């Protein structure tokens, strides 16, 4: 078969054309790629660009919207606009409210759609097109891990937002990635003593687990710590993510002999499964002569609001809550409330803190080069950010701080006042050896 069913040497013409076009374009792209920077996206003008990569559509859009509000507030505070928020209570005084390293902070935003691919595409746009020096955000562990991997390859810093899976700073940890939020391991360690005090040591648990990485991670940690207390595990049932109707999973709980139901769900899944469990009358039941109890390991205020009355008296853990009374939390709640008219969520808190921590590390390092920033963040000890004394552990880039155990409030005074803090589990109790979760950091990457 000739190339175009024609006697004339089309093949030759085509080949010449293709090669010619390729040859004509080749020198340009090398010029385009070339630059004299020491590291990727080195800021040259009077400003530096941060990339805020949050879910604006999809299951975690509520969290994403709150994260974006927090980031905007953080940028204002770093640039010296507004009342300064936590910069006034932050133990490091490097940031003076005149930007970072004398450069004004600007930002670009993107939609992760709660999908790894979309999140990476959006992060790549920020890095390649908008020249972002740092990417932050992510409202699900899968997305956070995917973007963290990308930032490692590209050579920019990733400051993880709301991601609770062990893997982010465990199995999948990366040198260029940092997480301020806590993880399922810490949830298990913090929750176990409270469960023991309230429900005793002779209990049988039944797990309903969202069937993906975070769910398994959460189930594993709770099992590990409750079985240490002497609890038994009747069954651990996996439910598909976004199932909507959980009734078929809740009915078997009643006949299993279990007296505690652990819901390893997050977001809308948790709102639905908890609401249905309460509607089925589980909490009014008596099993083995004990009151039936429900536990939700990871709580957020946005979820508690969604589940309404059903959360009353139910235990769980959370990273931060706006009703905390330390100076840092008060300052943040005040400036967030002034800007948007309602209190921030834990997602907003961790993102706000991450943005400030990054800016502060750049200021202290006197550079935006990822490897310099990394040195400034590793082992950094700070206070005044709402969680008490905190440390960025150098071995796995995970923040260690106190963890809050909360309970759904029995008599809420407003629609935001749905959780009460039962106990602040001190940092020492939730700390674990760095090699427990596996993974390798690798070496830092400056890109370029």
């Amino acid at each position, binding site marked *: 078969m000739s190339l175009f069913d024609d006697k004339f040497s089309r093949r030759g*013409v085509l080949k010449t054309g*293709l090669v010619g076009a390729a040859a004509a374009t080749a020198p340009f792209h090398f010029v385009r790629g070339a630059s004299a920077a020491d590291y990727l996206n080195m800021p040259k003008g009077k400003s530096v660009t941060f990339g805020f990569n949050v879910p604006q*559509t999809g299951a975690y859009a509520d969290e994403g919207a709150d994260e974006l509000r927090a980031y905007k507030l953080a940028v204002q505070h770093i640039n010296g606009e507004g009342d300064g928020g936590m910069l006034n209570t932050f133990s490091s005084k490097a940031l003076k409210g005149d930007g970072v390293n004398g450069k004004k902070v600007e930002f670009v935003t993107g*939609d992760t759609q709660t999908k790894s*691919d979309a999140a990476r595409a959006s992060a790549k746009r920020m890095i*390649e097109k908008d020249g972002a020096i740092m990417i932050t955000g992510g409202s699900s562990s899968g997305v956070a891990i*995917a973007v963290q991997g990308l930032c490692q390859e590209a050579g920019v810093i990733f400051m993880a937002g709301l991601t609770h899976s062990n893997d982010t700073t465990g199995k999948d940890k990366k040198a260029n990635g940092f997480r301020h939020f806590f993880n399922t391991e810490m949830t298990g360690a913090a929750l176990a003593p409270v469960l023991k005090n309230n429900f005793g040591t002779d209990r049988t648990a039944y797990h309903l687990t969202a069937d993906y*990485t975070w769910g398994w991670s959460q189930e594993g940690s709770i099992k590990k710590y409750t079985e240490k207390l002497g609890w038994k595990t009747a069954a651990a049932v996996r439910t*598909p993510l976004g199932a909507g109707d959980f009734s078929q999973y809740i009915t078997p709980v009643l006949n299993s002999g279990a007296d505690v139901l652990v819901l390893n769900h997050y977001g809308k899944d948790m709102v639905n499964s908890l609401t249905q469990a309460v509607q089925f009358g589980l909490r009014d039941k008596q099993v083995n002569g004990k009151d039936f109890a429900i536990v939700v390991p990871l709580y957020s205020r946005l979820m508690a609001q969604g589940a309404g009355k059903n959360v009353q008296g139910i235990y769980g853990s959370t990273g931060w809550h706006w009703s905390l009374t330390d100076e840092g939390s008060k300052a943040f709640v005040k400036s967030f409330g002034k800007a948007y008219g309602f209190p921030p969520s834990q997602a907003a808190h961790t993102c706000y803190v991450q943005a400030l921590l990054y800016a502060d590390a750049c200021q202290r390092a006197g550079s935006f080069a990822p490897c310099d920033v990394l040195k400034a963040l590793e082992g950094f000890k700070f206070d005044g950010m709402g969680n008490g004394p905190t440390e960025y552990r150098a071995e796995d880039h995970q923040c260690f701080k106190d963890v809050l155990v909360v309970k759904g409030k029995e008599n809420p005074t407003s629609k935001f006042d749905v959780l009460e803090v039962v106990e602040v589990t001190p940092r020492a109790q939730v700390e674990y050896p760095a090699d427990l979760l596996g993974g390798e950091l*690798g070496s830092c990457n400056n890109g370029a």
Partner: protein
Amino acid sequence: MSQKLEKIKSPLDMEPLTIEVHDVEASHRAKTARNDLILMVVFSAVVLGGPWILAPFGADYPDLLQRFCIFGIFAIGFNIMFGLTGYLSFGHAAFLGVGSYAAVWSFKLLTMNAVPAVIFGVLCAGLFSAAIGYISLRRAGIYFSILTLAFAQMSYNLAYSVLTPITNGETGLQLELSDSRMLDAAMGIERTSSLPVTNLFGMKMSGYEGFYFCAIILIIAFYISLRIFRSPFGMMLRGIKTNQNRMAYTGINTRPYLLTAFVISGMYAGLAGSLMAVTDPLAGAERMQWTASGEVVLMTILGGAGTLIGPVIGAGVIKYFENIFSAFNEDTLHAAYSFLPEGLADFMTTISHPFVGEGWHLTLGVLFMMIVIFLPGGLMEGAQRIANLFSGAGKKSKAESSATDTQPAE
């Protein structure tokens, strides 16, 4: 294949007629060949010149350019099935996903070179599509669509949870420092403390190099699709679309043709999937979700199903919206309207805000509706109409267009 064609002709006994039109046909064929050559040259020039052509639109960065090429390939492949046979597969994303997973596994187990990854990805997707096609093609129309959709969703759910040891579940399959990379090890490539990058015999496959790699593959893929469109096999597929029953009555078993088209189109999807892994070595389950399958249907219809170049344009438009429109926030808008007086600028920002940023789906939805209502042949029909308007020779080119490649899907 030619034997089959004769089979149709002989019972109809059209001998004299064929001889009569032979000369016309020959000149027509020569004309088509010339047009095809021009099309190929223009297409290649536009694709390779992408970084300059797209610069005014803010889309001249490597990742998006790569995406244009990759989804262009995906849509071209989908169009071979949907555009030619009219069989609407609603599960093509499954093959894309299989291609990605296969390519990443090739990086993990064999080598960081892109060539084995692409070959492995295409092969796996081909096998997988043969299995699914064999079952699904027992039914036609909506039942075929539903079957493919069901298989794709099944693959997605398997990849998301049950097959986690192979797919790494929600987190997605990623490279690790501890991967074996047997061929690389055998070639004596040293292990470093940072992750290796994908390469083509030493040339890294991210950035502009990756784009040119994808661009050249897109041009080849486009050429193959062109040849299929012009071949007797392509004619057979068009026949299936026009009237499958009549084909059956003339004694032709259409299923092997359909299955071949389905497998080819699945391999195109696998090629696209493996290129995604080459430019960015990660494979996630959501690549197989039904929304991803729906996206390629949108791309094809938006650009013009059954046309050669339409699907590529459709893919470009959708990826442009997804990546550029979704990034506009209030500040960008304000800057864009800054030439207007203060009050008017605020007003314009307020009006246009719901359509950009997180509202990009809305804009795309409106655009899609407009096109389906006013331009059923997709953007290609729009281009044709504009061309006719300017040349003023509406009638002439209309007659021509029916002979060339613009045949909208029903």
